[in-house]
Structures are given as structure tokens and as C-alpha cells.
């Protein structure tokens, strides 16, 4: 049997070193829900209306590879009877930072899906702060509303 070369041995050693470390997937943890409140004019329902109650999520980025994070436009998944959604618009805004220090993204309110890349950061914690708001010139009928924003990290 032919012996493995010196270069081959180094590659083998590197692969072995990597074995116990995170793979190429990013992991999402600690999602925390946000809270919505209506404006004095009752035309905006949002997490930055009369206060600041965002949702947050933490991601651990994979080693040796950056990821792309997609933030979908929010949807209204719960609204009370009598609510007239005909003229509503839904928006999301967010910031993303590494260890709360290095800001990677700062997206103002948008009704479209957006994404950003983390670059080749590896094995670091990325924290996202996400806001939702719903605008409706018809106002919001009394009751409970829930919006949902899907956040996805792609290896």
C-alpha cells in the first residue's frame, strides 16, 4: 500500500480538525416574538408604535463559509372579525449585527423580501432585531392581530 504524501497528510489533518466543529449549516436559535400596538390615529399597527418591542433571533454562522439571510415580507396570520384588510400594507424592517457590535445589515421598512450576505465570517453569532408594521387607512377593528416574518439563512 502506497503511503500518503506529506501534503496529503496535512489535508487529512485539517479535515480531521474540522470534524468536531460546526458544519456548513447556520443554526437559528432563541427566536423571541415581538409586540404590536396601534397608533393614535389607529392607522398603523407596529412594533415601533408607542414603544419599541421588536422580535429578535440569533444565528450561529458556519465555519469557513458565509451565508445569505433572507427576510420575507410579513403576512397577517390573525385578525379579528370585522377587520377590513382591503387597503392594508405590511412592512418589515431589521438590523443584523455580529455580537452586537459589527452591523451587517440595516434595512428600513419595506414590503418586499430582502436579503444580505454575511461574507466569510465564521463561527460567530449574528443577532437580528426585526420590526413589523401594518398600515391601513381604514383603521383596525378591535381584537388581536398577529403578523409573521419568515427569516431564512442559506448556506
Amino acid at each position, binding site marked *: 500500500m502506497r503511503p500518503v504524501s506529506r501534503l496529503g497528510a496535512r489535508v*487529512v489533518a485539517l479535515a*480531521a480538525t474540522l470534524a468536531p466543529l460546526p458544519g456548513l449549516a447556520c443554526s437559528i436559535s432563541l427566536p423571541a416574538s415581538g409586540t404590536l400596538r396601534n397608533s393614535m390615529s*389607529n392607522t398603523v399597527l407596529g412594533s415601533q408604535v408607542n414603544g419599541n418591542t421588536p422580535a429578535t433571533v440569533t444565528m450561529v454562522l458556519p465555519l469557513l463559509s458565509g451565508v445569505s439571510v433572507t427576510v420575507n415580507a410579513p403576512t397577517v396570520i390573525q385578525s379579528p372579525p370585522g377587520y377590513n384588510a382591503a387597503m392594508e400594507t405590511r412592512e418589515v424592517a431589521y438590523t443584523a449585527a455580529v455580537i452586537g457590535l459589527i452591523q451587517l445589515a440595516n434595512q428600513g421598512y419595506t414590503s418586499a423580501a430582502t436579503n444580505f450576505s454575511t461574507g466569510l465570517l465564521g463561527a460567530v453569532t449574528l443577532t437580528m432585531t426585526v420590526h413589523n408594521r401594518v398600515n391601513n387607512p381604514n383603521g383596525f377593528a378591535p381584537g388581536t392581530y398577529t403578523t409573521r416574518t419568515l427569516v*431564512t439563512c442559506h448556506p
Partner: protein
Amino acid sequence: MRVLAVATTLGLLAGIVPASAQSVNLDFTGTVIPGCTLSAGDGGTLGLDYSTGTTLGSEEAGGDAAHVTILSIGANTLTVGAPTRTGQAGGYVATGEAIEVSYTGATGLSSITQAYTPSQTTNPITTIAASVLTVHNRITNPNGFPNGNYSTRTVVTCAP
């Protein structure tokens, strides 16, 4: 080639393979409380109809309407009371006078219009964004109006 093959094999064994996307749903929840609020707007101004001298009202020359902003969440009743005279010039003879109110709404209250009436009126309203109600008052009096200051008052209420 063998080196790459070994490395690839070890990499696969180590689990270093392209992974699928990871997703999370972030939810936001809030509750809107029913109620109705009135924001005091500007008071009106009464002007005299100098062609007859028998009408003093906010739609006459020099007059101006009063405005109130109404925000309703859920089912409420908007009540516009009968107007009253709260001030008059000395020597004013009230016999035969009629005090009336009319109003019209905008935006969420655009379906509400009331012609001049001396009576209280009510209107059911539902959820609307903050909307303005424009209110007029007038006094008609065949005896005329001695010079001096006059004032009227209309009480607007909103309640479940």
C-alpha cells in the same frame, strides 16, 4: 488525486457537506382595544346675514365651522346634541328664535351628513381612522340681533 479523494472522504465523514437552509418564523402579536375618542378641534365663528339681519350662523359671511376629530374602534354611537345659545347681547329678544345644527363628516365619516335641525341626532359608526366632523350652528330670529357678542354650543359625544 488520491489526496483530494481522501480529503473529500474525510470531509463527508465529518459532516462538512452543503447543508439545507434553516428558517424561523418571527411572530408579532398585538390587541386593539375598542373605544372612541374625540379630539377637540377649533371652535366656530358666527356671522350675521346682513341682507336680512335675521340669521346668525357659521355659514354666513364672516362665519366659520367648528371641527372635531373622531376616532372609533369597534361599534360606537356618535351623538350630536341640540345646540344651545350660551351668550347674547343685551336687549336680545329670544322669542321666536330657532337654534340649529348641521354637520358633515370626512374620511371614515364621509357617509354622515345632517341638514340643519334643532334636535339631537345620532349616528352608528364602526371602526374608522381619525376623521373630522365639521359642525355648523345657526340662530334664526325674526326679531333680529342687537349688536354684541353671541355664542352657541353643540355637545358631540361618542360612546359604545
